Structures are given as C-alpha cells and as structure tokens.
C-alpha cells in the first residue's frame, strides 16, 4: 500500500516544517529566521548558552524568540486566553529553573515544546481532565457511535475547508479530543508519543483522534448552514 495522506511529521527539528510555511510564525525573529536554528554560533544557540550560565538578558532573548510559539501552543491546547497566559508564564518559569539541564540531546525547541506540553497536561489533570475522561470518551454512545458518520454524500466537505471555520471547530472540541487533535494533527506528534505523554494506550490515542476528526467534520458540514442563517 502507498503512504497515507494523513500527516505523519514529527516535531523533531526547530519548527522546520512550520517555518517552511511561514518563518515569521515560527517564533524566531525575522532577521534570523532564515538561519538553521541548530547551526553552530547561531544567535539562538548563543543566547541559550548564555542563559544556561545565568544571563538574564539572554533568557529574555529566548523568551522573545519562543513566546509566540509557546503561547499559541498553550492557547490551542486549552482554548482559553487567560489560562494560556498563565500556562505560558508557568512554562517559562519552569524553563528558567531547568534550562541548565538541557544537554542538547534534541533540538532546544523540541525540548522546550515537550516541557510546555507537560506543563499544560499537569494543569489539565489538576482541572480534572485525566486519561480516565479520555477513556470514558471512547465508550460509544448513541450520539457518538460510528453510525454517526453516516450521512448523505452531498454533505461532504468537497476538499475545501474554511480556515476560520476549522479554527472555531477545533476550539469547540471537548478538551480531551482537542488535546489529541492538536498534538497529532497540528503539532505532529505520533500516537506512541501521545500515548506516552498522556499515559494512555496507542489505540486510545488513535480512537480519540478519529473521534475528534469526526466531530470536526460534523461541525464543518454544519458551518455553511449556520453561516446562511446569520
């Protein structure tokens, strides 16, 4: 069989896949966006090295380089501005405490990315979103069984999706669904990585992602009708 059209990319280099779409959005200053983030003597590595030595100005530079990416990740994962701000603050505080432990085994952005995801997951667990709720969400209900996907073929998305509609639909997903959808389809993590991060099974991760996509499909198919009523 050939390769699927579904995404399989890994966030294993300094935002390279995203930077290819829009370097400005990758969180790096425009002046350095064209430089490979891991190139020797890059401004990013220089700032990192100085920050690890306790240089506060260098830490401020790192904040400046990564703040948009980290804040946006938090915002996508929790869907709430105030919480995203708090989590961004907590993530950078943790970074400040732990930056000295970064040994360069992976790209710094990947390491930071995982740190942030752990901060968000801790927050969600404190709020009561646990893998238990993810498991519960897997149980088929009358509303959400596979049969829910049946429908007339004329209501397909016809290969086009309104970007704003998709953003709204993702924001409206239940927290558990949104979490896995963001991690897999937007951030590019594999199911085994998500299962490890969320302490759930790989099958659970696949099922949750599938249900998230089904919910998005329902929302997106309803979108033109909602718009027409406005």
């Amino acid at each position, binding site marked *: 069989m050939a390769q699927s059209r579904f*995404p399989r990319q890994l966030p294993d280099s300094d935002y390279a896949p995203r930077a290819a779409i829009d370097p400005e959005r990758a969180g790096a200053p425009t002046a350095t966006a064209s430089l490979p983030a891991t190139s020797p003597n890059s401004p990013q590595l220089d700032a990192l090295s100085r920050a690890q030595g306790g240089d506060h100005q260098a830490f401020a530079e790192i904040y400046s380089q990564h703040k948009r990416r980290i804040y946006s990740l938090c915002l996508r994962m929790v869907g709430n501005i105030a919480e995203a701000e708090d989590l961004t603050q907590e993530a950078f505080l943790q970074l400040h405490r732990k930056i000295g432990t970064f040994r360069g085994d992976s790209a710094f952005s990947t390491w930071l990315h995982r740190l942030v995801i752990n901060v968000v997951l801790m927050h969600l667990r404190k709020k009561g979103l646990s893998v238990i709720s993810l498991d519960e969400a897997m149980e088929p209900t009358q509303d959400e069984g596979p049969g829910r996907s049946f429908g007339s073929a004329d209501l397909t998305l016809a*290969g086009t999706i309104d970007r704003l509609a998709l953003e709204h639909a993702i924001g409206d997903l239940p927290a558990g669904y949104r979490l896995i959808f963001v991690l897999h389809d937007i951030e590019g993590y594999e199911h085994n990585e998500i299962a490890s991060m969320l302490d759930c099974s790989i099958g659970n991760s696949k099922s949750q992602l*599938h249900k998230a*996509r089904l919910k998005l499909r329902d929302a997106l198919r309803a979108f033109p009708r909602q718009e027409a009523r406005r």
Partner: protein
Amino acid sequence: MTENQNNLTCAQFQSQLPDLIGSGLDIADHPHLESCDLCRALLADLETIAEAARQLFPVMEPPDELWEHIESAIKEEKSGSRE
C-alpha cells in the same frame, strides 16, 4: 447498513478506521471503499481535515505585560531561594 463485497458493513469498516488510518498506509484501495460512496466520502473528508489542520498554524502574540510577570516571578523565586 451498506454491505459490500468484503461483507463489511459501514459500521464495521468505520470501527476499524482509527487503526487503518493510524497505520499510516493508504487505505484508498480498501475493498469496502470500492463499493461504498459514503465511507469513501467520509475518508476524503477526514483526510481534508487532517491536511487543513497541518496548514493551520495560527500564531498569537502574548500580551506585553506577560514578560513583566515572568520577570517578577523569577525575581521572587531568586529572593526566596536566598532566604
């Protein structure tokens, strides 16, 4: 429910979809899809959503005062650790 040559109903096929999609293989030539317009449309939609999400990368600017809050918290931590 739609029966097909493979004797899979749509419900049976869709119950396998998470694993089929998660396998990373192209399932466009799955026997059920050859005879089922609805499931073919469903798969096309899910692929469209996944592809659109990959391109979706809204990056937001945090408020300016956030850095001030972080700096204050760092200073508090430092002073706390000295005591």
